[in-house]
C-alpha cells in the first residue's frame, strides 16, 4: 500500500544516475587525498558514498514515495558531511538541515496530494493538471525541487557551507549532485507529471524564480573575497539558468536547461576542485592573501581557466552552447527574461576575471607546489569534458538530452552544433567584451585585482544593499527563525493560559465553594437550629403539596 519498490530506467534517469556515479567516483578519488589527516575522514567518506546511493535511488525511483524516501535520506548524509567540517560547522549543518528539511516536508505534502489527485503514486502513470488543488500540489513539489537545486530563496546555507564544510562536499553536493537531482525532479514534475504549457502561470512562476536567482546570486558572488564563497554564490546563480530554461516550457529552453545542468555540474565541480587544490597547497582561500599561483600550480591553473571560460559562456566551451539555448528560449518568452540572463552572464564573467586575476596572476607571497596527481586527475578529466561537451556538443545534445524530450516534441528542430540565432551570439560576445573592459577599469581604479568589482560594490545604492545582505537581513532563514520564535512565544502563552486554568482558576473556584460551606458551618447552635427549622418546613411544604 505504501511503499512500492519500483524503479524506472529510461534515458533521463539513467543519464542522471550515471552522472551522479561518475562525479562521486572522481570527487571521491580527490577526497581520499584531500581529507587525509582529517580526524573524521573515514566518517566523511561513509556519508559521501551513502549519499551517492540515496541520490541514485531517488533518481531511479518510479514511485513518488520511494523517491521521497531516498530524497529525504539525503538530509542525513548532507548533515553528517557538513558536521565533520569542524567544531563550529554544526551551525551551518543545522541551518542546511532545517532549510532542506522544511522544504522536504512541503514536498511530502505535494507528493501526498499528487498521489491523491492522480490516484496513484507511480510516476510514469501520473498526469495531473495545474488547476485548483493540482496547482497547490505543483507548487509544493516545486519547493522541494528548487530547494534541493539551491534556487532562491532556499539557498542561504550554501555560502555558509562554503566556509564550514569540507571542500569535496562543496564540489560534489552543491556543485554537482544537488543540481542534478533537483533539476531532474523539477523536469519530471513540470514536464511529465503536470505537463506545464508555455502560457501557464506555472511556467511564468518558474521563469521568475530562475531570473531572480540568476541576478541576485551573481551580484553577491561579485563582491566575495573568498575563493570558495565566490564559487558558492555561482553555484546558486547557475541554477537560475536551468530553472529559467526549463520554465520556458519550450523545447529549446528545456534542452538548454538540461544541457546547462550537466555543463554546470562539470565546470562547477572542477572549479571547486581547483579551489580545494589551492586551499590544500597555499593554506588559504582568502583572495586578499593569494596571488601568482599560476606558475606554481600550472595544471590547476589550466583547469581553472577552462572551467572559468565555460561558466562565463565563452565559445567554444560547453557553457556557451547551453546558455545560448537558454537565451533563445527566454527571448521567445519575453525580453526581460533574456535581459536578466545576459546581465547575469556579464557579472559572471566579471567575477571570474576578478577571481582568476586575484588568485592565479599577480605577485605571489606564498610558495606553493602543484597538488598530487589523485587530486589533479579528476580536475583534468572534468575540464576535458568541458571542452568536449562544447566542441562536440552533438554528442551530449543529440545522443543524450534530445531523446529525453522525445522526437515529437522537437518538431524536427536540431539544437546541436553552432547556435542558430546569430544575434544572440553577437550579444553574448559584446557582453563578454564588456565584462573584460569592466574588469580592466575596476583594476585600474582600485589598483588591485581583488578590487576589480569595488566600483560596483561601493556604488551609491548598491553599497547599502550589499551591507544589509552581508548582515543577513534578507536571509529567509533568519527571518523564518525570528517568526518561529514569535509564534512559539504566542503558542506558549496559550499553553500557560490553559495551565493557569488548572493551577489557579480551578483552585480558586474550589476554595470559593469550600469557603461558602465553611461559612455555613459556623459552630453556632442557634444558627443550626434555624437551618433545621427552615429545612423541615421546606420538606413539609413539599410533602403537603
Amino acid at each position, binding site marked *: *500500500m*505504501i*511503499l512500492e519498490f519500483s524503479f524506472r530506467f529510461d534515458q533521463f534517469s539513467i543519464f542522471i544516475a550515471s552522472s551522479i556515479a561518475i562525479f562521486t567516483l572522481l570527487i571521491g578519488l580527490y577526497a581520499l587525498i584531500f581529507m587525509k589527516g582529517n580526524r573524521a575522514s573515514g566518517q566523511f567518506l561513509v556519508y559521501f558514498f551513502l549519499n551517492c546511493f540515496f541520490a541514485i535511488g531517488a533518481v531511479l525511483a518510479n514511485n513518488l*514515495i520511494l523517491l*521521497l*524516501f*531516498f530524497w*529525504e*535520506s539525503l*538530509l*542525513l548524509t548532507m548533515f553528517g558531511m557538513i558536521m565533520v567540517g569542524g567544531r563550529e560547522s*554544526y551551525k551551518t549543518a*543545522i541551518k542546511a*538541515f*532545517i532549510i532542506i*528539511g*522544511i522544504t522536504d*516536508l*512541503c514536498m*511530502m*505534502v505535494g507528493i*501526498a*496530494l499528487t*498521489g*491523491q489527485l492522480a490516484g496513484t503514486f507511480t510516476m510514469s502513470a501520473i498526469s495531473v493538471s495545474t488547476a485548483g*488543488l493540482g496547482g*497547490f500540489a505543483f507548487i509544493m513539489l516545486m519547493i522541494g525541487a528548487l530547494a534541493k537545486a539551491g534556487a532562491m530563496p532556499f539557498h542561504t546555507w550554501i555560502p555558509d557551507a562554503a566556509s564550514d564544510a569540507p571542500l569535496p562536499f562543496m564540489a560534489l553536493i552543491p556543485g554537482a549532485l544537488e543540481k542534478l537531482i533537483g533539476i531532474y525532479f523539477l523536469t519530471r514534475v513540470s514536464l511529465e507529471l503536470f505537463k506545464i504549457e508555455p502560457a501557464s502561470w506555472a511556467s511564468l512562476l518558474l521563469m521568475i524564480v530562475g531570473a531572480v536567482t540568476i541576478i541576485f546570486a551573481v551580484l553577491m558572488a561579485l563582491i566575495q573575497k573568498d575563493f570558495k564563497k565566490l564559487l558558492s554564490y555561482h553555484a546558486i546563480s547557475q541554477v537560475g539558468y536551468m530553472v529559467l530554461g526549463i520554465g520556458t516550457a519550450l523545447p529549446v529552453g528545456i534542452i538548454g536547461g538540461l544541457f546547462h545542468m550537466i555543463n554546470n555540474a562539470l565546470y562547477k565541480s572542477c572549479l571547486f576542485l581547483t579551489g580545494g587544490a589551492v586551499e590544500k597547497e597555499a593554506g588559504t582561500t582568502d583572495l586578499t592573501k593569494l596571488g601568482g599561483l599560476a606558475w606554481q600550480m600550472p595544471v590547476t591553473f589550466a583547469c581553472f581557466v577552462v572551467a572559468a571560460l565555460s561558466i562565463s559562456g565563452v565559445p567554444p566551451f560547453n557553457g556557451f552552447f547551453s546558455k545560448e539555448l537558454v537565451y533563445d528560449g527566454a527571448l521567445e518568452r519575453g525580453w526581460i527574461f533574456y535581459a536578466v540572463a545576459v546581465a547575469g552572464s556579464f557579472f559572471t564573467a566579471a567575477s571570474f576575471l576578478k577571481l582568476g586575476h586575484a588568485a592565479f596572476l599577480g605577485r605571489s607571497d606564498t610558495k606553493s607546489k602543484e597538488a598530487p596527481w589523485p587530486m589533479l586527475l579528476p580536475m583534468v578529466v572534468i575540464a576535458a569534458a568541458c571542452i568536449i561537451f562544447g566542441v562536440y556538443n552533438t554528442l551530449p545534445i543529440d545522443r543524450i538530452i534530445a531523446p529525453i524530450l522525445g522526437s515529437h516534441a522537437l518538431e524536427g528542430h536540431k539544437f546541436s552544433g553552432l547556435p542558430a540565432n546569430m544575434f544572440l551570439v553577437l550579444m553574448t560576445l559584446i557582453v563578454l567584451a564588456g565584462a573584460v573592459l569592466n574588469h580592466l577599469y575596476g583594476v585600474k581604479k582600485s589598483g588591485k585585482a581583488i578590487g576589480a568589482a569595488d566600483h560596483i560594490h561601493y556604488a551609491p545604492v548598491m553599497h547599502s544593499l550589499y551591507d544589509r545582505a552581508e548582515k543577513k537581513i534578507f536571509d529567509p532563514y533568519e527571518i523564518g*527563525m525570528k517568526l*518561529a*520564535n514569535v*509564534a*512559539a*512565544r*504566542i*503558542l*506558549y502563552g*496559550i*499553553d500557560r493560559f*490553559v*495551565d493557569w*486554568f*488548572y*493551577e489557579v482558576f480551578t483552585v480558586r473556584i474550589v476554595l470559593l465553594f469550600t469557603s461558602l460551606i465553611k461559612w455555613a458551618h459556623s459552630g453556632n447552635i442557634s444558627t443550626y437550629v434555624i437551618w433545621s427549622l427552615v429545612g423541615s418546613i421546606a420538606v413539609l411544604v413539599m410533602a403537603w403539596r
Partner: protein
Amino acid sequence: MMNKEALLLAAIFAPIFGALILPLLGRVSQGLRNNTALALVALSCLCSLSFIPSVMGGKNIIFSFALPLSLSLTFYADTLAVFMAVVSSFIGAIIVLYSFDYISHYDNQNEYYLMVVLFLGAMMGLVYSANLIYLFLFWEITAIACWRLIGFYRGQRDVLKADKAFLVTVFGALVMLIGFVAIFQQTGTFNLIIMRGQVLPDIIVALILFGILSKSATLPFQTWLPDAGVAPSPVTALLHAAVLVKIGVYVFARLFLMTFMISSSWHATVMMIAGASALVAAGAALVETDIKRLVAYSTISQIGFIFLGLAAGNMVGAVGGLLYILMHGLAKGGLFLCAGIIEQNAKTKDITRMGGLIRTMPVTAMAFLFCAFSVMGIPPLGGFFSKFMVISGGIKSGEIWLTLVFIVGAFMTILYLFRAFTLIFLGESKGYPSREGSKMMVACVALLAILSLAGGLLANYPIGFLKTAGYQMVGLLK
C-alpha cells in the same frame, strides 16, 4: 485453543499478580526482584508476540468467563490489541532494564518495581479487555500506578504534580464512565464484540472523547504531562512516551474505529483539536528550557499527529496513526531515556546550562540524534513512514488546510529538536562536569535508536500487520 487462552490470561495476569510479590522478593535480594520484574514484563511481551501468527490469519482469541449483571470477564486479542500489547510491553521491558541502574540509588525501589510492573500489567488488561467496565477498571489502575510513580521522589512539588496528573486524568475518566453507562442504556451490554457496528450518538462520543483526550494529554488537558516531568526519567519514558499517553489513542481506535460508527463531523472536529494541540505544544517546546518538559511537550505535539491519522477516516491514515504509536514509542522512549542519562550525569535539567556534552557522552548524543531524526520523520528512520502516512491520510480525508497545520507542527518539530540537540550536545561546555551513563543505560538508548532505524528499513512488516487491523475497522469511511 485452550493453550492460547491460557497465554492470553498469562499476558495480563502474570505482571499484575507478579507485581505484588516483587516487594517481598526485594526483601530477599535486589537482583532477584529486578530480574523478576524484567521477566514478568518480558513474559507478557512473549505471550503477546505468540498471538501474531494466529491474528494475522484472522483467528482472534477470545477468553470469556460468565458473570452476572453484564459483567462477564471477556478478553479479546485481535490485531489491534496484539499490536498495542506488543509495543507497550516491549518498550516497557527496555525501560525496566534501563531502570536497574537508573533507580539503583534511590529509596522506595520495591514500590517502584511494584508500580511499574502493575502499570504494564494493567495496560495489558486494558488492551485485551472486550468489556467496557473492565477497560475502565484497568484504565483507573494505570492512573493510580502513574500517580504513585510521578510522585516517586516524594518532594512537596513532586506530590502536587502527581496529584494534578491524577485529578485531570481521573476527572476525564469519570466523564467517560458516564458515556459507558449511556452506551449500556442504549445497547444493553458492555461487551464490545456484541456492539460492533452500532451507531453512537454525538453526546456519548463527546463524553468518551473527554476521557480519551485527558489521558492522551491533548489540548485542553495537556499541561499535566509536562508537569509530570518531575518523575524519574524511566517513569516519564514509560508513562509519557511509550505507554500511558497511548492509552487514550488506543481507546479511540478501539471504540471509534473498531467498534462504533460515529458521525463523520467528528473526524474534522478531532483533527481540529489535534491540530491545535500539535501546534501549541510544539510552540511550547520551542520555548521550554527544562529538557524533560521539552520532550514531554514534544510528546503532546506528536500525539496530535496520531489523532490526525486515526481521525482521518481512511485506511492509510488509520494504519499510519497506529504505526506512529510504534515509531513514536521507540523514538520518544529513547529521547526520554537519553534525557535521564543527561540529567543524572550533568546534574541539571536546564538545557541552557549544558553544552558540548557530545564530547563526554558520544553514544548518548548519537542515540539522541537518531531518535530525534525519527521523531522529525526523516528517512530512513521509522518516523518517516508514520509521518508520511498520517499526512497522506489527512490529505485523503479532504481536510487539506487542517493537514497543513500539522505540517507547520512538523516544521516546528525539526526546530525544537535541533534547538535541544544544539544546546545540550554542541557548542562549548558551560563548565558542568559530565560523563557517559552506565553501560546498561547507554545500551538501552542505543538499542532504541537502532530499533528506530530498523523500524524504517523494515517498515513493511509492521505496516503489513497493521493493514490486517485496518481491514477489520468499521469506522472507516468507505
